[in-house]
C-alpha cells in the first residue's frame, strides 16, 4: 500500500462548519502511544479547542458516530477480526495516520513473524483452539492506505503535536527521516559508542526522540525504526568487530521494529551465524 500526502485540493475551502472530528483507534499494542497523546497536558486544551474528540476510549466514553476527519491508529494487525476492522475504520476516515512502531512496522509482537505461531500458541495457552490469531503481525499500511506514518516506541509528544498541527493547518508534517546522530550532535551529547564503547543503533535509526538514550549515556535501541539511508550491515560489522556475538547482533535488530525491512533483513543475516 502506498501513503499519500495530507494535502487538500487548492482553492477548495474545507467544507465543515464545526471543528474537525478526531478518532483514536487501538489495535494490537500497549496503549503507550495513546498515552503520549494524553500526556500532552499543556496542549490538550488547545487541541480540544481545535478538534472534536469523537472516539477515544482511553480518554472518554463519549462516542460520536463516523465518518471522522482524522483517525489516529495505534497497534498492529494480528487477528482476522482486526483485518476487517481496519478496513471499516479506513472507510470512515478522511485521513488516517498511524502512530507508533506497532502500527507502522508491526511492533515487538512481530517477533512472531520469525517463529512458528502455532507452537507458541500450544505452549502458552491451555486451550489454543479458542484463539484466533494470524501468524504474522503486520503494520496498518499492509492492509489499507495510510496518509502518514509516525514512528516511535512510543511516539514522541512533539512529533505527534506536529502531525496534528500539520493536519489542522492542511500542510505536510515536518518529520525528519535522518539519523538519531543528528539530534545527538545538535544537543551536544557525547557519542556513547566512540567515548564509552557502548553499542548504539543511533546511526541507523530515524531521529525523533531527541537522542534521549544517548543523552543519558545509553545506546540507542532503535525505537524509531530505520533512518532513510540505513547501512545496517556496516553497523553490524562494527558491532561484531567490537566483540558482540552474532546472535546478539541479530537481537539488537530484532526489537520494536523487528519487521521493518532493513532491520528484518539484517537480523536474518545473523541468524544461525556462529561467533568466530
Amino acid at each position, binding site marked *: 500500500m502506498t501513503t499519500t500526502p495530507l494535502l487538500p485540493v487548492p482553492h477548495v475551502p474545507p467544507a465543515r462548519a464545526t471543528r474537525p472530528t478526531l478518532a483514536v483507534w487501538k489495535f494490537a499494542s500497549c496503549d503507550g502511544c495513546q498515552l503520549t497523546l494524553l500526556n500532552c497536558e499543556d496542549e490538550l486544551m488547545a487541541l480540544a479547542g481545535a478538534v472534536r474528540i469523537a472516539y477515544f476510549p482511553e480518554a472518554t466514553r463519549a462516542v460520536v458516530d463516523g465518518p471522522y476527519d482524522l483517525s489516529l491508529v495505534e497497534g498492529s494487525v494480528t487477528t482476522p477480526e482486526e483485518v476487517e476492522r481496519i478496513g471499516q475504520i479506513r472507510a470512515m476516515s478522511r485521513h488516517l495516520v498511524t502512530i507508533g512502531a506497532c502500527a507502522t512496522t508491526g511492533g515487538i509482537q512481530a517477533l512472531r513473524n520469525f517463529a512458528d505461531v502455532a507452537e507458541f500458541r500450544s505452549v502458552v495457552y491451555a486451550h489454543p483452539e479458542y484463539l484466533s490469531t494470524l501468524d504474522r503481525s503486520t503494520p496498518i499500511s499492509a492492509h489499507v492506505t495510510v496518509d502518514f506514518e509516525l514512528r516511535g516506541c512510543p511516539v514522541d509528544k512533539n512529533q505527534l503535536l506536529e502531525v496534528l498541527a500539520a493536519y489542522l493547518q492542511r500542510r505536510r508534517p515536518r518529520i525528519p527521516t535522518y539519523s538519531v546522530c543528528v539530534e545527538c550532535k545538535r544537543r551536544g551529547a557525547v557519542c556513547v559508542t566512540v567515548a*564509552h564503547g557502548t553499542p548504539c543503533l543511533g546511526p541507523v535509526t530515524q531521529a525523533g526522540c531527541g537522542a534521549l538514550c544517548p543523552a543519558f549515556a545509553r545506546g540507542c535501541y532503535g525505537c524509531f525504526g530505520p533512518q532513510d539511508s540505513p547501512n545496517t550491515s556496516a553497523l553490524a560489522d562494527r558491532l561484531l568487530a567490537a566483540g558482540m556475538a552474532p546472535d546478539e547482533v541479530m537481537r539488537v535488530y530484532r526489537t520494536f521494529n523487528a519487521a521493518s525491512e532493513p532491520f528484518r533483513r539484517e537480523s536474518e543475516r545473523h541468524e544461525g551465524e556462529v561467533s568466530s
Partner: protein
Amino acid sequence: MDRHAQVIDVDGLQLLIEVLASRGYTVMGPTVRDGAVVVAPVAGVADLPRGLRDEQDAAHYRLVPRDDDAFFGHAAAVQGAKPVLFPADQLLWRARRSEDGFRLDASDDDDAAPVALLGARSCDLAAVDIHDEVLLRRRFSDAHYAQRRAGTFVVAVTCGDPAGTCFCASTGTGPRPGAGFDLLLTELLEPVHRFLVEVGSVRGAEVLAEVPAAPAGPGDLAAADDVVVRATGRMGRVLETEGLRDVLYAAAESPHWDDVASRCLACTSCTLVCPTCFCTSVEDVADLTGDVAERHRVWDSCFSKDFAYIHGGSLRGETRSRYRQWITHKLAAWQDQFGMLGCVGCGRCITWCPAAIDITAEAAALRAATPLVTTGEGARR
C-alpha cells in the same frame, strides 16, 4: 626573539578567568563531561581537565590520566568553537498571524553575554577564521554569527600533546596559533607549572594587565618553542595536500566511492563535529493553532538524504555521492570557493565517526587510485 611575552602561574590563570568573568564574558573552556573533554562554562581552574590526556583514534576516544598536572594536556575537544559561535539551533525570526497575513516580531538582538573562549586550539582558531570567511566576508553575511563573533574574546593555547587523529601540521593550521587570539598561552610544566602568555590584541593586553605577570625569560621562550617542535613531531595522522584538489576532481567517477559507501553509515556525525562544516537548514515550527510561527536555522549535513532534495527526489540518493560531496567540498571545492582548504586537521571526523572512516586514509586511497589527467591525453583511469 622579542615577543613581549610574559609568564603567569596557576594562580594567574585562575585570576585571568575571573578577570574575564568580571568584564562580562561567559568563559567557555575545556571541562570533562560524560568521559570526554567538552567546551562549557568554566568558573576557575578547578573546572579544567587537569592531569588528563585523550587517547584518540578512528572511532575511539578515551580519557586517560597523565603523569603530570597539565590543564591543557588534551587535544581537540568533542567540539571546537562551532557550538558557541554558530549554535546548532538559532531562532531566525518569530511571527504572528494577523488579520491580513502575518507580522514578524521585532528582531531581538542577541543579548546573551559575549563569550571568552579559553583554551582554544590552533585548529579551532583556523576553523573560526574559515567561518569568518564563509559567513562574514562574502556578499551576504550571517547576521547572528556576526553578532556573536564580534564580541568574542579568545584565549588560545599552544597544543602540546596532539592526539592520534591530529594532522594540523599537514594542513598548516597548527599546532601553534599564528593569529586570531587576544591572548596565547603555552603551558610549561618544568621546573614549575607556569604559562607563557603572548598578547595578540589591545584588549588582550588590557586583560593581561590585571593579572600579576613576570616578563618571560629566554628559558621560558625556548621551552615554549620546544613545546611546538615536539607537538609537530607527534601528529597521529598525515594528509598529503599537494595537488589534492585536482586528485579529488579527477576522482569523481572513482569506484572507490562504493568502497567508502559500504562502510559509511550516512549518520552525519563527521559533518556535525567538523569545526568548519557550515551547512544549515531551516526548520519551521508552528503551534497547534497555526497563529505563531518560528523559523530556526539548524545544523544540517550533506550526508542526509533530504539535503539535496528537489521536487522528484534527492539529487544525492546514494551514500557514495554524499561522501564524495563531503570530502570533495572539504578538500577541493573549498579551495575554489574560498581560496583555502576546508579542513584544519583537528581529526574530529576520524575520532567521532562510529564507522572509523578516516579522511586522511580515504584521501590517500583516492590519490593512489586516481592518476591525474595529463594535458592532451584526456581522462585516464
